[in-house]
């Protein structure tokens, strides 16, 4: 297993623990990083070098991944593209979960509405494409 994959799995474990502990903002952040790291692995395997993009890793990674999905014909199913671009929303929720001074997620209801429904949508497509490997949320 490559190092990025170990890091991805560690983030997933912490995300689940954070949900159990009701630290929902922490969970948002860790779930997001789990997906981001998995996508970075896919891009590396496809020969896309992320090392020189340290200042804008997130935007570059998401943009390149979505571009790659088009090349692979993944958007031929309208729902796939509609779901995958929600990667941007997950990224923004990660930012507000870490830094926002006006917003905090304190309940499971909020967690579901603000993050989890969209996260599951993205994961469903990534699973369909086998990008996440053996992924089980719970």
């Amino acid at each position: 297993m490559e190092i990025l994959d170990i890091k991805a799995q560690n983030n997933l474990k912490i995300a689940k623990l954070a949900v159990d502990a009701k630290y929902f903002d922490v969970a948002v952040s860790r779930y997001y990083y789990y997906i981001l790291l998995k996508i970075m692995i896919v891009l590396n395997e496809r020969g896309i070098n992320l090392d020189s993009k340290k200042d804008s890793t997130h935007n570059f990674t998401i943009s390149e991944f979505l571009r790659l999905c088009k090349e692979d014909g993944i958007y031929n199913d309208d729902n796939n593209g509609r779901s995958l671009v929600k990667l941007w929303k997950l990224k923004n929720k990660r930012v507000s979960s870490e830094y926002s001074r006006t917003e905090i997620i304190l309940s499971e209801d909020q967690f579901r509405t603000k993050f989890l429904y969209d996260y599951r949508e993205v994961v469903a497509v990534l699973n369909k494409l086998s990008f996440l490997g053996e992924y089980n949320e719970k």
Partner: protein
Amino acid sequence: MKNNIENKIEEVVKKISSKYPKIIIGYNFDEGCYFIWHNNKHLEYEDKEFRRYTGKLLFDYFFEHDIFNVCISYDLDESLKEYKSNDVLDYGISISFKDNGISEIPLEINQPDIRESILFNNNIQLDNFRIPAMAIINTKHNEFDQTFFEVA
């Protein structure tokens, strides 16, 4: 001046509004992506026709032209900024606003995500009043209330 992507987004928003006239919809740009947000949770997560229709719009207007930073999603926080007095929230819940100095959210607002969004996003303004000081919600039961919200 609006750029090409924003012009396309406005066309898409117009099409969705025309097909789904009750929806409250808009867009903003944040951290590298355009977010087309709306207020209808049911359409977003349950309605296959809505998802197919909006997914095709995304493909035709953006993905087809290698534009990948446009996203459509349900966003209660953004939607709340657009609500005006007597607007109808998701699934027949109407909201009215009064500048009456109420300092707590009335118990009538019992939908958890709406209530908490109001409580924890106190920078949102409606009709020039701060949300935590103004809201009264009247519920109107319909089939969706039972599915998505616990209505007293």
